[in-house]
C-alpha cells in the first residue's frame, strides 16, 4: 500500500512535467515569443520588488543589495519620527481628496453639458479642444501657467485691468495659501478631456426611446438630464470612482514635481516628491524606500478594498 502511494505522489508530477515539456516542445515558438516580455517584467518590475528589502536593511551607496545588514523596522520608526514625512503624508491625502471631490464630478458635468449642444460641429469642436491639454507634459503646463499668471508680464494683468483691479497682482504659483488650489484646478483642467471621452461614449449608447418616454411623462430638459442621462451613467461612474479611490496614495508625482517650487513646498510636498528628495538628493536610500513601500502597500490595499466593495455593489464594475 505504502509503496503504491509513494509511487503515485512521485509519479504524478513527473507525468505532468513530461506532458508539459512535450507541449512546450510542440509550441516552443509561443514560449520564444513571450520570453522577452517575461524577462522584461521579471527584471524591471519584480527585481525592484525584491529591492524593497532595503527598507529593512541599512543600505549604503557602497553596499550591495545582498550584504547590507538587516535592521528590522528601524527605518520605519525613523521615517514616522520625521515631521517632513508626516507633512508629506498629510498633503498627499488632502490633495488626493480635493482632486476626488472637485475633479471627479467635473468630466461628468462637462459631458452632460456637451451632450446638450445641438450643433454637431460645435459639439465636436468643444470635445476636441478639451482633450488638447492631455497631449502636453506637465512641464509645458507649468510654462502655460507661468505665461498666464506671471504678475509682471502674464495675461492675468490684462484680465485684472478689464475687471478694474489696480495695484499688485499676487503670484499664485509661488503663494503657499493658494497652491493646493493651483494643483487641483490644473489637474482638473488637464484631465477633463480624457474623462469626457468615456462618459460621452456611454451617453451615446443610451437608448433614445428613454428620452421620448421621459418627455411624454412631462420631464423637462434638466429632468431628462438627471433622470435619464445621469441615471444611465451610474455604472460607468461607479467603476471610475472606485478606480480613483484606489489611486489615492498617488497624488500626482509628475504634476507636482513639474509645477511646485521651494516657496510652496510645505503645502505641495507629497510622498513621491519626499521620497525623491530623501532618497536621490540626500542619499538616504533605506528610509526613502521605507516611505515608498508604505505608499505602495497602502495603495495596493486601497485597490483591493475598493475592488471588493465594487464587486458587492455592482458585480460588473469590479476589475478583478
Amino acid at each position: 500500500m505504502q509503496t503504491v502511494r509513494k509511487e503515485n505522489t512521485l509519479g504524478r508530477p513527473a507525468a505532468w512535467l513530461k506532458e508539459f515539456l512535450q507541449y512546450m516542445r510542440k509550441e516552443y515558438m509561443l514560449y520564444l515569443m513571450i520570453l522577452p516580455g517575461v524577462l522584461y517584467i521579471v527584471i524591471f518590475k519584480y527585481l525592484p520588488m525584491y529591492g524593497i528589502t532595503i527598507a529593512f536593511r541599512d543600505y549604503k551607496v557602497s553596499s550591495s543589495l545582498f550584504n547590507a545588514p538587516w535592521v528590522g523596522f528601524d527605518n520605519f520608526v525613523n521615517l514616522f519620527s520625521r515631521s517632513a514625512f508626516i507633512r508629506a503624508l498629510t498633503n498627499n491625502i488632502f490633495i488626493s481628496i480635493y482632486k476626488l471631490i472637485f475633479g471627479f464630478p467635473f468630466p461628468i458635468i462637462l459631458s452632460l453639458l456637451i451632450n446638450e449642444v445641438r450643433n454637431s460641429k460645435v459639439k465636436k469642436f468643444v470635445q476636441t479642444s478639451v482633450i488638447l491639454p492631455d497631449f502636453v507634459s506637465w512641464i509645458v503646463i507649468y510654462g502655460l501657467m507661468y505665461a498666464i499668471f506671471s504678475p509682471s508680464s502674464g495675461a492675468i494683468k490684462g484680465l485684472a485691468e478689464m475687471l478694474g483691479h489696480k495695484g499688485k497682482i499676487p503670484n499664485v504659483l509661488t503663494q503657499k495659501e493658494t497652491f493646493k488650489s493651483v494643483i487641483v484646478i490644473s489637474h482638473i483642467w488637464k484631465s477633463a478631456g480624457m474623462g469626457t471621452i468615456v462618459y460621452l461614449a456611454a451617453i451615446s449608447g443610451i437608448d433614445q426611446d428613454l428620452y421620448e418616454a421621459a418627455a411624454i411623462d412631462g420631464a423637462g430638459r434638466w429632468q431628462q438630464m438627471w433622470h435619464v442621462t445621469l441615471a444611465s451613467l451610474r455604472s460607468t461612474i461607479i467603476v471610475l470612482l472606485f478606480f480613483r479611490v484606489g489611486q489615492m496614495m498617488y497624488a500626482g508625482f509628475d504634476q507636482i514635481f513639474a509645477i511646485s517650487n521651494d516657496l510652496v513646498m510645505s503645502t505641495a510636498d507629497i510622498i513621491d516628491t519626499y521620497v525623491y528628495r530623501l532618497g536621490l538628493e540626500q542619499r538616504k536610500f533605506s528610509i526613502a524606500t521605507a516611505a515608498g513601500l508604505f505608499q505602495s502597500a497602502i495603495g495596493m490595499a486601497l485597490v483591493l478594498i475598493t475592488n471588493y466593495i465594487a464587486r458587492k455593489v455592482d458585480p460588473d464594475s469590479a476589475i478583478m
Partner: protein
Amino acid sequence: MAKSGIKKRSVGDIISDWLIGIFLGLLVFTTIYPFWHILMYSISDSRASMTGGFFLLPRKPTLLAYQMLFKTKQIFIAYRNTTMKTFFGTLLSVFLSALTAYPLSLKRFRGRNFISMGIFFTMLFNGGIIPTYILLKDLRMLDTFWVYIIPGAMSAYNMFILRNYFQSIPSSLEESALLDGANAFQILFRIILPLSMPALAAIAMFYGIGNWNSYMDGVLYVNEQRLQLLQVYLRQLIGAAGAKGALGDAGDLGPASRLTEETMKMTVIAVSIIPVLIVYPFLQKYYTKGVMVGSIKG
C-alpha cells in the same frame, strides 16, 4: 434630443442654451488661449510685450528670439534625444507588447493565466523609485540612452488592451493558417497584426505621446548634457535657473540683451509644443478610439 427641436422651445430652454453656451465657450477659451498666448508672445518684440496682458495678436512681430534660441547647441541636442526616444522607444514598446500579448490571447497557450496574473500584479504593486534606481545603477544603465527606452518598454495596461483586441479576432483565421503550416510568428505578423491596426495605432500613440512628454526618467537617471531630453531642457529654462543663464552656451549674448527672459521662456515652450500642435488634429481621433478600446474591461 434633436427630435424635441420641432417643438417650440420655451424661454427656460433658451436661457439654458445660453448658459451652457457661455460655460462651454469660457472653457474652450481657457483651454486654447494659453497655447495661443505663448505662440504670440514668442514672436512679439520683447519691449512691447513686457507689460503683459492678453495677446490676441503679436506685438511688433519678430523672430529674434527664435534666432537666438537656434544659436544654442543644446536645443538641437535635446530635440534629437527626445525624437530618438520617441521613435525607438515607441517602436520597441509596440513590438514587445505585441509579442507578449499574442501568446496570452490564445486559449491553448499553457501558462497564460500564470503569466497574465504576474503582469497584472505589477499594475497593483511596484518596487518604487529607489529600488528601481538602484537596479538601473547596478545594470549600469544610468547616463546611457538605453535608460530612456528599456525600463519603460512595456506598459501592462497597453499590453492588455492589445491582448483583448487580439482575442476579439475570430480564431478560425488562425486555425486555417495553422493548417497551412504557418508558425506562430508568421501568424502574428501576417494575420493578427494587419487585422489589429486600430488597436496598434492607439497604443503606438499612447506610447508615442508618453515618450515625447516624459521627463521623470530624464531627471532621475540622466545627468549628462548630451543626453538631455527636451522636457528636461525646457524645465531648466523656465525654472528658477532662468532662460538667459541656461542659454549661456550661445556665447555672444549681444542681441540677446534686446530680449527679455520672458520672451526666451515663451519661445522655448513654443518650440516644444509646436510639433504637438501639428500632429494633434490627426492624432486626437485615434486618442478617442484608444481610450474607448482601453475602457473595455480585460
